[in-house]
């Protein structure tokens, strides 16, 4: 929490799917250099919130502020232009492409000079820079020339996170990044999250695992029935308190 103005703030977001109000006047905020966990029971509106804040979903009403000024996140490319990146649950890597190709997909470095104008690529530079980015996160990518589809879930997760982090200058959303991972890989991902935060990026961490939430985040915001019902300082809270807020058993927020 290095600054007083949140890097990304949502005010009164509303979105209905038919008769269901997935978001019902929900607020949210994350500062630069901070890990905010977004928790809530199934159907609380977490995924809808992430989609809205990453430009993947249109809102019925409400406003989104980036660095203090209101923005219109109409598409994922608008969001990524601002430095907002998302790692979705389904990873969204192209399984037949290599890690560097995935890393730079949509942002390729052209070859120098005339060849670049013809569409030729500077694979050497992209490979070298990808390696730097993976190393920086401690991601063990064993092969830079094999398709990512042949790699383990943990490695793909690391590549997806590295890609998001490499391009995210403002905020990175991680939707259930540890859901499919083993113990050791989970540890690596949590460590990665801390390193990204230390680079001054705002990290939004969505998870069902309360111990992980408490371990890695600075603040915890709880969604229930499409609203933010509570915000906790992670160091002052407990699993019981968080579960209580999620389920509504505990109606007093620490806000």
């Amino acid at each position: 929490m290095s600054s007083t103005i949140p890097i990304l703030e949502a005010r009164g977001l509303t979105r209905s799917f038919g008769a269901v109000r997935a978001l019902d006047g929900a607020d949210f905020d994350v500062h630069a250099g901070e890990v905010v966990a977004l928790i809530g029971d199934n159907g609380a509106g977490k995924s809808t919130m992430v989609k809205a804040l990453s430009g993947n979903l249109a809102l019925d009403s409400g406003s989104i502020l980036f660095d203090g000024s209101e923005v219109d996140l109409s598409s994922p490319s608008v969001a990524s232009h601002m430095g907002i990146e998302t790692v979705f649950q389904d990873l969204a890597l192209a399984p037949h492409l290599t890690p560097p190709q995935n890393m730079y997909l949509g942002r390729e470095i052209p070859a120098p000079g005339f060849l670049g104008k013809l569409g030729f690529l500077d694979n050497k530079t992209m490979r070298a820079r990808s390696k730097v980015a993976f190393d920086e996160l401690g991601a063990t990518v064993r092969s830079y020339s094999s398709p990512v589809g042949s790699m383990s879930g943990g490695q793909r997760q690391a590549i997806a996170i590295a890609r998001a982090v490499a391009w995210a200058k403002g905020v990175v959303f991680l939707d259930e990044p540890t859901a499919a991972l083993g113990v050791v890989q989970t540890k690596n991902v949590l460590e990665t999250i801390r390193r990204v935060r230390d680079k001054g990026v705002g990290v939004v961490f969505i998870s069902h695992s309360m111990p992980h939430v408490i371990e890695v985040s600075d603040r915890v915001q709880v969604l229930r029935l499409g609203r933010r019902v509570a915000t906790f300082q992670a160091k002052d809270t407990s699993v019981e308190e968080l579960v209580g807020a999620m389920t509504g058993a505990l109606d007093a927020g620490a806000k």
Partner: protein
Amino acid sequence: MSNDSMPAKNATANAVGVAADAPPTGEPRSEAAVSPDAALMTVDSERGIGGLARRIVKVQSFQILLVLLAIFVVFSVLAPDTFPTWSNMRLVIQNVSILAVLGIGMTYVIITSGIDLSIGSVLVFSGVIAAKVMQGMGGDGWGTAIAGILVSIVCGVLWGVFNGLLIAKAKVPPLIVTLGTLSGALGLAQVITGGVDIREVPAVLASNIGYGNIPGTTIPTISVISLVLLLIFGVVLHKTKFGLYTYAVGSNEESARRVGVKVDRHLIMIYALSGLMAGMAGILSLAQYSTTAIAGQSTTSLAVIAAVVIGGTSLFGGVGTIFGTIVGLFIPAILQNGFVITGVQPFWQQVAIGAVLIVAVYIDQRRRAAASRATKTGKRSLTHLFRRSA
């Protein structure tokens, strides 16, 4: 399992375990620092001539090249005086040339996990319109011929764009769209000609391109044109951004879209390319046979698809090479030629191709199952040919 493979497997497991177990230090970790095993493995599997050779052997287009060479050797032994001669091979190469032009577009289309059944009909349609235009202009000179070439190419591109728009924008499955244009383009060609082939082709076209040779050699001009196109589009596919996006769209359309690849525009361009090649093939066919051969292309699309798939391009998308397609085209051509020369009924060629095709797809399935771990994006079936996500 052989004893040799066991230590290797253990080494792999160790390397992963050690690498993952290493305490996060906050420092950029070099591969060597993580574990000597991991570093060794990277070097082993990626660099060095041994690793490269092993990877080449695993590529389907290489395996199929061995099959082609085997077939070649068998016929060479059976008919040493007639089969392995330049004049015979020249014939085979000439016969393959037009299909190879079509194969370029089809390779791109199938890599995007699409299909284009319409190319045979688009070839006929483009040839018919070009023949009509050249007939109308009259004359046997280059002026008329060039007009015909341009008209044929434009017709092909228009059909391709039409296919692409329906597939990318209207979200109609590629199998259905191109089945429709397969029928539609052929029907229109018959309407325009009344079903009667046009047999007037400018002499310069027929004698220079159609059955002519490169001056001073016995190399067919049509094959050189085909080879140049193969080289250009091979380089585009394997070395440029356009090629990379083709693989990306076929591998995971949604992920390509999310990172800002203009997927719809790319698909339209891919089908336009396939149409362009069909238009090109239309004028080449006209030049070679001096007739529009309206009824002669009913199985062309399937022959090209079979060749592309035999050559290792995956119907599931994301995988494929132009080189594989070339090899895949020569197998049926050599078989047919060899059967004729050795006195086997040439109809057996069709049986053999059917078998090779099924085996090729079976191998592709097995390889995919082994190579990709079961994930949402990895698990795919061919139903994508029948439906498109909205």
